[in-house]
């Protein structure tokens, strides 16, 4: 009974988005519970990315409702979603390769020196930003980076991903959305990033993970949201269904199960 009173961190109801005659999302729902990793899977064109963009403010839905901690919200741009505590790591990473790790972590959120040096001369507090960046990176167990003043372009793909995830975790107060974080990575680096995602969740920040990679999804997701033809047709858990079940539901080869995978439906 108590589980039913848990308010989702993020809840979307009946989201719709059309582009001309194309319906990208067709009354889709989504719930993200506190402290969980919710994977969103679906075939190409199922409306995954439109759904995620609506949640992160990059797309304004035509209709439907989004609630953050139970309060209705309407984002007009990604900055508003970010201000509300939703951080998104885009597939393109959104890091500036020429800038160093600390600069990237604080990109668009730079901190100035106190006093007239900051207010009049607009001087950045580089020392503080560097020590904060080092703290955030080590909190997530990314201690392999030798130098926080290292340009991001000199890092490997996995390390860059770690910088992007660390930035999201450092500034996201409600949740983090990760779009295909392991798509471009090798096996070893993928595992490292998956562990990073677990660390983010274990620090209390729920995660929405968009991925095509079924083994990765089944390895770390608490629940799996399956999107098909612009709607959520099922929510399963890695323990209730197999990978092939998930693929079958996703492609329409198998009917969607009745179980929705919600905590309140279990037991």
């Amino acid at each position, binding site marked *: 009974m108590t589980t039913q009173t848990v308010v989702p961190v993020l809840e979307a109801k009946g989201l719709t988005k059309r582009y001309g005659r194309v319906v990208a999302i067709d009354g889709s729902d989504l719930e993200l519970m506190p402290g969980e990793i919710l994977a969103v899977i679906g075939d190409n064109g199922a409306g995954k990315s439109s759904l995620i963009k609506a949640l992160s403010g990059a797309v304004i839905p035509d209709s439907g409702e989004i609630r953050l901690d139970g309060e209705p919200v309407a984002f007009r741009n*990604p*900055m508003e979603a970010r201000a509300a505590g939703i951080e998104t790591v885009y597939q393109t990473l959104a890091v500036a*390769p*020429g*800038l160093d790790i600390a600069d990237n972590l604080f*990109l*668009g959120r730079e901190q100035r020196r106190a006093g007239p040096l900051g207010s009049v001369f607009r001087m*950045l507090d580089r020392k503080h930003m560097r020590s904060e960046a080092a703290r955030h990176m080590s909190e997530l167990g990314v201690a392999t980076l030798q130098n926080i003043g290292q*340009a991001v372009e000199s890092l490997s793909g996995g390390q860059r991903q770690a910088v992007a995830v660390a930035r999201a975790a450092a500034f996201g107060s409600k949740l983090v959305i990760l779009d295909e974080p392991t798509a471009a990575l090798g096996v070893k680096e993928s595992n490292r990033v998956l562990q990073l995602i677990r660390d983010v969740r274990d620090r209390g920040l729920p995660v929405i993970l968009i991925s095509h990679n079924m083994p990765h999804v089944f390895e770390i997701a608490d629940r799996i949201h399956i999107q098909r033809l612009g709607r959520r047709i099922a929510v399963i858990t890695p323990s209730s269904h197999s990978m092939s079940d998930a693929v079958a539901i996703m492609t329409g080869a198998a009917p969607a199960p009745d179980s929705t995978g919600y905590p309140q439906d279990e037991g």
Partner: protein
Amino acid sequence: MSTSTGASTAADFDVRRHDSFGLRLQHALHANPVLGPLAVLILAIIAFSIVNTRFFAAANLSLVLLQVTVIATLALGQTMIILTAGIDLSAGAIAVFSSILMAQFCVKAGMPAVLALLLGFACGTAMGALNGMLVTRIKLPPFIVTLGTLTIFFSLNSVVSNSETVRGTDMPSLMTWTGEAIAIGNFQLSYGSIIMLLLFGFFFYALSRTAWGKHVYATGDDVEAARLAGIRTGRVLFSVYTVAGLLYAVGGWILIGRLASASPNVGTEYNLDSITAVVLGGTSLFGGRGGVIGTLIGALIVGVFRNGLQLAGVEVVWQGFAIGTLVLVAVSLDQWIRKVKG
């Protein structure tokens, strides 16, 4: 057996050392883009001093600085635009047009010098802002935008000036003040050069120590990534073109002092020369890499080569050949540096 093993390890060692030297050089240049241009400048100064001892005389060195002051000022604005992966072909046109306007405001409209100067700065800023608006609002490529405005500004030049040169002696002394100099021994340091150096100091600070500077680099590096990180890239680009316009106008003021006149018939080569200085200074035409200190060095390289070749008795026509070659070397070097791997 043992000798052959010994030989092969020695060979391996040699190859490895050779590779690592190239790699280390690549990394060093990657981390400090100023190193290459600085080495070229120092070597050029040493070489030209050996060829002709008059080169290193204080009087000659101050002449070199004087000769590059206008180009360096324009190249400062150009640097910031190129850092955003843009280009400004209208830099010289804005500078010359601003100088004509200032002179005309004084002489024809009879305005006080300070007012004419400020109005000239405002006009240059507005011309830069026009470039910025066309780039950010209409989303035209900077090359096309500034090619258009270059042609427009040069044509307006002739209209406003009536194709006449205003002599410095007809202008208030403030207009030609930038051409006056203070003597440090035999070294003549012009006020124009002082203004130019102060501006370089200011923008070095703005680019490396403020959020605006970080945003300029981020925008040039990857505009989409910068936008997704929450930077208003349109605003950054607009500010860069506008600030550059103001700098070109200041360059126009320095130009009046340098020529002791305001002429519509000068400066056609300034547009490309400013780009040359930026490229020689190690700033990448692809954006996001480089800086203003490199540009100052790049402008000095041009000045040192022109002056040094002349003193070495090389015909004037070969100066362009030498500088063109340097540009190609600099751009090739940039391509190589960008391929650096972690």
